[in-house]
């Protein structure tokens, strides 16, 4: 029970991998890559969580209050930006492949190569 959130992250990572390997469309595949990446957010945040801790924002609470780890949250923020940037780029690459090959199916495209 105490490692359930970590197992959730593992589950999502594996599910994303299954999606990537079985995908028949590069846009679909890109979304599956984002799913894999969301596993890392969950893992990071779960590691920094403290039972009965509050968010590390001291606007309304005294600084002596028990708070969850702000560092992992900052790392996750960076991770999210990276994820969106990479997804936008992957989709642009997918469009270029589509432009060149007229298809988004990785199997069909690979056949063209011979």
């Amino acid at each position: 029970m105490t490692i359930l959130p970590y197992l959730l992250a593992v589950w999502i990572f594996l599910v994303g991998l299954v999606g990537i390997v079985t995908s028949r469309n590069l846009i679909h595949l890109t979304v599956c890559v984002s799913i894999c990446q969301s596993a890392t957010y969950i893992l990071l945040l779960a590691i920094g969580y403290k039972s009965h801790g509050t968010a590390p924002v001291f606007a309304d609470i005294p600084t002596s209050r028990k708070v969850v780890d702000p560092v992992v949250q900052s790392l996750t923020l960076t991770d999210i930006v990276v994820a969106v940037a990479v997804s936008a780029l992957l989709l642009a690459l997918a469009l270029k492949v589509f432009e060149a090959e007229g298809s988004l199916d990785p199997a069909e495209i690979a056949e063209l190569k011979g």
Partner: protein
Amino acid sequence: MTTRVRLAVFSSGLVLVAALLVDGVSNLPPFGRYAGPYGDIVARLVEPQRHMANAVTAVVFDYRGFDTMGEELILFAAASAVALLLREMRDHDTSDLVEGIRSDALRGVGALAAIVTFVLALQVVAHGFITPGGGFQGGVVLSAAFALVFLTNEYRAYNRLASSSFAEPVEALGAGGYVFLGLLALALGFGFLENFLPFGVTGRLRSGGSAAIVNWSSALAVSGGFALIFSEYLQENVAVRHGRVGK
């Protein structure tokens, strides 16, 4: 490779990777029992050292501001990349194409919504050191304001506001400004990206020192970056509808 071979390779790999990952995470401290010390030290120090109420933003723009510089540059590189790749596919400049909704009522609502979004975005950025939010979150909302202009107004108006000719410099200015602030601190005799201005009073809008400027710079980079990405995808679609793609 046949599908069956691939699935055999993949499923045997997946079992091993799953075992590796489960074995790894099951040795982590139990959920809710974070042992520190990095986060605890920062949470304790942030108010006395930096007069910032939001410890996360403090880490993002001050303690680990250099990581965020890399992050803004990733966004800069990705947005430039999208522009570069998609423009290569279009044979013409598409700024002459006019598309959009003709209903005046809808355009009025759209303009209003864009203004509200814009103000909201500035709020989110400005309060980054006090409440959840900051340059990234506000920056994305800001780019949404530009997208709203497109969605409810004619394409030409959007093109003036957020087309590449506008978004691209904004994005470069934000990302470059971030690096520049780092070098400025260095030139003034501080460390690279060191927070060199007075920190202000915790909880006030003008707290944060020079990290607040960094925050705005990052808002600029993010809004410009996303506006550029949106704009390129939208132009791409307009160009397709008018048969202006391909070589």
